[in-house]
């Protein structure tokens, strides 16, 4: 029997959850909507009129395109490095019992709990003291530094339920350690590594604060938006953001469907 108080409570909960979700999406709607705006003057803050103009001419601002390219390159390189470094640590932490593992655990958490201004500014002081010029390389270095912790955490979480005796089984059947790793361990770890890679990539693409401190004259996509906010904020930025959003949605949708397909196949 469900009393009226429980039903009221449920109703309130449902409404609250709905409102919070709406709150989360309100700015997203605004960003997407304003890609269809015909802006008044240089800044895209006030709605003037509906227009497809930005969508028909999305590459109008070469600086924006260049900045996006830089962000992509940084993200690809840093993700590649971070995934290798982080996965290795994750394997070490989960598969083995070793004395300094607790310390490593703690050390890995520290970058995650440091504010970005501190991460960025401390790296800046390092580069200043070493007379290292700021640019693409320093951005990649900075990104890898904060990505490693995320990768390790993600892969570790996925490795938790891993049945390591499968490796023993493979070796009992004659596979040497290298073959076991390539044919048994790695494929089973792959979903976790892919998830970590996607997370790292997204973090790198969106990073502003740390990048801002160490980028020198190099301009990434978020830095472009930051600078553009003062000079000219064309709707093309919104167009790009909407496209990224859609691509990410498709990506997530695709991986979700793939997962369901795989489990269905496995059940058969």
């Amino acid at each position, binding site marked *: 029997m469900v009393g009226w108080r429980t039903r009221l409570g449920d109703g309130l*909960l*449902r409404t*609250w*959850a709905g409102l*919070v*979700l709406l*709150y*989360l*999406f309100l*700015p*997203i709607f605004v*960003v997407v909507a304003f890609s269809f705006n015909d802006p008044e003057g240089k800044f895209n803050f006030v709605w003037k009129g509906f227009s497809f103009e930005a969508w028909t001419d999305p590459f109008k601002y070469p600086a924006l395109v260049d900045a996006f390219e830089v962000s992509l390159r940084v993200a690809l390189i840093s993700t590649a490095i971070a995934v290798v470094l982080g996965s*290795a*640590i994750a*394997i*070490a*932490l989960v*598969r*083995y*019992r*070793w004395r300094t593992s607790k310390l*490593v*655990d*703690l050390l890995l*958490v*520290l970058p995650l*709990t*440091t*504010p*970005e*201004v*501190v*991460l960025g*500014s*401390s*790296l800046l*002081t*390092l580069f200043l*003291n070493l007379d290292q010029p700021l640019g693409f390389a320093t951005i990649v270095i*900075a990104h890898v*530094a904060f990505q*490693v912790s995320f990768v*390790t*955490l993600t892969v570790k*979480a996925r490795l938790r339920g*891993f049945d*390591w*005796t499968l490796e023993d089984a493979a070796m009992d059947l004659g596979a040497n350690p290298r073959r076991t790793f390539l044919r048994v361990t790695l494929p089973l770890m792959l979903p976790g590594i892919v998830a970590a890679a996607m997370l790292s990539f997204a973090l790198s693409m*969106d990073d*502003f*604060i740390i990048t*801002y*401190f160490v980028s020198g004259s190099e301009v990434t*996509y978020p830095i472009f*938006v930051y600078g553009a*906010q003062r000079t000219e904020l064309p709707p093309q930025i919104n167009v790009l*953001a909407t496209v990224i*959003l859609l691509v*990410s*949605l498709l990506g997530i949708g695709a991986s979700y469907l793939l997962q369901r397909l795989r489990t269905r196949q496995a059940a058969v």
Partner: protein
Amino acid sequence: MTGPTSSETVAEVMEPKRPAALHAPEVGRRGGVVPYLLSLPGMVWLGVFFFVPLVTLAITSLSVNTGSVYVPSLQMRWEWSNFTDAFDAYGTEFLRSFWYAAVATVAALVLGYPLAYFIAFRAGRLKHLLLGLVILPFFVTFLLRTLAWKTIVADDGTIVGMLETLGALPSEDRLLSTSWAVIGGLTYNFLPFMVLPIYVSLEKIDARLLDAARDLYADGLHTLRRVVLPLSLPGVFAGSLLTFIPAAGDFINAQYLGGPNQQMVGNVIQTEFITIKDYPLAAALSFVLMALILLGVLAYAKVLGTEDLT
């Protein structure tokens, strides 16, 4: 102690669920030097590009710039005055940052806990969809999201108009360039960081405990207060840290949504480093911010154990 059954079952139920590996050796291979080799590259990178910078930050904060702004020459001279100067000049900003971050964290908790609860217990098949929705806003760069808030709470916008008729506007008859706008922005940007950890710890609660509570005549509210809330505390702590820490150091929200009276420590550090280029002072500010937060985090790690953090 009579038979092992009763106390064991209780212990089993009270323990957080763990996926059972087929043959359960709790993965404790000795491995010798292998784990050290595996973790070496990553830890070296972290060592050089995370820990060493903290050292250079400390060194810079105790230095003096004997060169010019454009050709800096930093000499380490145990210049403690950098720290006192920092507090004299920017003490207000420090306090303000921690205050804003605290309010935003509480707001995120109030907004986010019911959402996490709903997704964990009431969403059924929609669970993954809703989680995806919570994460989705992250795919629009947070600069744009914060700029969108600037449009939403613009002086001549609908929201401000509505609040005006309700008489609910704070003193200056506007929302932009007030503390509320900045706090609102901070709450918004870090809300998912609060929702997700709480969801994770709610998920782990064994459903049998809730059944047991119901069998013992507890109604919804009672169960919430005595069973769910205490068991979700690790998630609440994690979410609070993940919200408070970045919020305290943020400068974008203050820059876009606030005015000169809403400057936070992050803005100050950014200006000192990038514009004014007073590296020693800036480093001192940054170092103090980090030290304060680090102390809090280490205290938390001691209390809860790092196992629960990851």
